[in-house]
């Protein structure tokens, strides 16, 4: 007899597997969350205890919303490279496609590949008709990725705790980037 059922699908792209977070990802995830440089636009750095909670939150989001973020891993080695996917906590203005990359995933177009796969998943499997991505001012790499994905900037969102964030809206379903 089960109180809870949770199913997290796996997506594949040319170079990547987008899959459920699991305990073996913790070391790589904690290295990312405790890195001041890599989390400077994400409210970090965090302690590894916070990273533990955040890894759990990634999975729990699937249970609460029916969707959530994936760990992006190398399709061949399964090395975790980042966390990308649909994200919608209740203090967000609307559902977003979120992305963050570990150091091992930087500079190879991996975020674009994973974000595009996540957006396709959200449109095709989740029935989203639109999607945004929230980006902190000054996060130039993330802004460049939004532009590369064909996003257009809209009015900023001001979060009661985290402050001002840029709103970038993705191309609608069926539009090639």
């Amino acid at each position, binding site marked *: *007899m*089960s*109180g*809870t*059922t*949770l*199913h*997290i*699908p*796996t997506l594949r792209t040319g170079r990547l*597997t987008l*899959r*459920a*977070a*699991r*305990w073996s990802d*913790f070391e790589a995830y*904690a290295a990312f969350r405790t890195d001041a440089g890599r989390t400077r636009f994400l409210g970090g750095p965090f*302690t*590894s*205890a916070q*990273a*533990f*909670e*955040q*890894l*759990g*939150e*990634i*999975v*729990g*989001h*699937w*249970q*609460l919303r029916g969707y959530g973020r994936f760990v992006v891993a190398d399709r061949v080695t399964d090395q975790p490279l980042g966390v990308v996917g649909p994200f919608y*906590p*209740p*203090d*967000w203005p609307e559902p977003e496609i979120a992305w963050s990359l570990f150091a091992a995933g930087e500079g190879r177009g991996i975020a674009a590949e994973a974000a595009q796969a996540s957006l396709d998943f959200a449109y095709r499997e989740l029935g989203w008709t639109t999607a945004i991505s929230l980006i902190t001012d000054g996060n130039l790499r993330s802004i460049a990725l939004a532009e590369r994905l064909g996003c257009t900037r809209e009015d900023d969102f001001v*979060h*009661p*705790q985290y402050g001002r964030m840029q709103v970038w809206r993705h191309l609608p379903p069926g539009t090639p980037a």
Partner: protein
Amino acid sequence: MTARLADTPVLETRNLVLRAPKPGDWPHWRDFALSPRACFIGGPYELGTAWRGFAHIVGMWAILGYGSFVFTRRGDDAPLGMTGPWYPADWPEREIGWTIWGAADEGKGLAFEAASAARDHAFGALGWTTAVSCIDPDNARSIALAERLGARRDPDAPRPHPEDLVYRHSAPVGAA
């Protein structure tokens, strides 16, 4: 590869059912977490923080294979509180935690009944050989519960916050 959280254990006691948390529990947790009743677990929380905390509790079941149980009355799936094994990264040692979400459900022995079952599960099915509960020194109800559970103060145990009291549980009689 797929994460699948299913067939999570369900514990039954005389009056209660302990099961894994599920999405319908969220509004009940939210009302608790945003209220002054959450003051001994780091609250009251903002909405977004409360949601992330609940997601974290749920997600731990999938990641670790065990986690905190939500407990309900038999025959009524409305959640009353949470109790169970808890062992975050950086936590000094394995813990048994408990919360009662609504003031109206306090004082009826529900947390004692639920936490007893959670402790027995940790020492039994999970194979724990010891466990603590870290309690705010002002949380008199929780201290009373720890003592009723037979836990004893362990002044030498490491603790997450220097002011916490650490109560150590002993294995229930008959546990492996």
